């Protein structure tokens, strides 16, 4: 995950690669986001709600 745009530089004076392109070119960062977001929003939030269901009076 360390190597980014830098490794692909050619001899010609290169235009700086925009942040979004660097994000899209980084499979492991995408993997991290794609696992963490649903884990937090869907699973953890959901499990917390299930855990908080009260006892019926």
């Amino acid at each position, binding site marked *: 995950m360390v190597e980014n745009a830098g490794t*692909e530089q050619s001899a010609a004076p290169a235009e700086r690669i925009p942040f979004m392109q660097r994000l899209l070119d980084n499979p492991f960062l995408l993997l991290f986001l794609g696992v963490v977001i649903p884990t937090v929003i869907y699973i953890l939030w959901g499990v917390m709600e299930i855990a908080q269901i009260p006892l019926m009076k």
Partner: protein
Amino acid sequence: MAIHPPQSRVWWNEPVAKGELVWIAIAFVWGLIMFFMMIYWHYYGKQNLSSEVGRVDLAVYEQKVIDFTDAYTVREEGDTGVPVVKPPVGGDAYMLARTFEWWPILELEKGKTYRLHLSSVDLQHGFSLQPTNINIQVHPGLEHVVTVTPTEVGSFGVICNEYCGLGHHVMTGRIYVVEPGQGG
């Protein structure tokens, strides 16, 4: 082509055609409309599933339904032996799911609001009221209180639409809706 790397090294800065941008904008706005439609309905719509729920012991729930049935049974359904129960108008009504029946039969009055308790004493079942087509998932150990107001008179089938074993297709129940002050 889509099977080759992008032609330019920095493709993020390539211009996007207007037609594509317009479509993206339409899709985005449509998404917002659909999102806020659900929120809108919570405030202004009349069909929102109740969030009133509690954990309950299976035997405790069963006893609640038996007590309810003993108190308000008005007749038996033909020769089936299934009691027909008429809960107090505007009060609590109980229905129990178990393999393979919905028990007891309820008789409700049109236009009156009831607190319908749903739970299962064994597996998961699917409360499917037909032909109205209201479908609610029923879990063992979770007592769900749905506030519901029947708007039409008649005999309504309650079907199980969550697979619950080899007798799943015989698992039915019934709700009668009568004009206010009638039935019983």
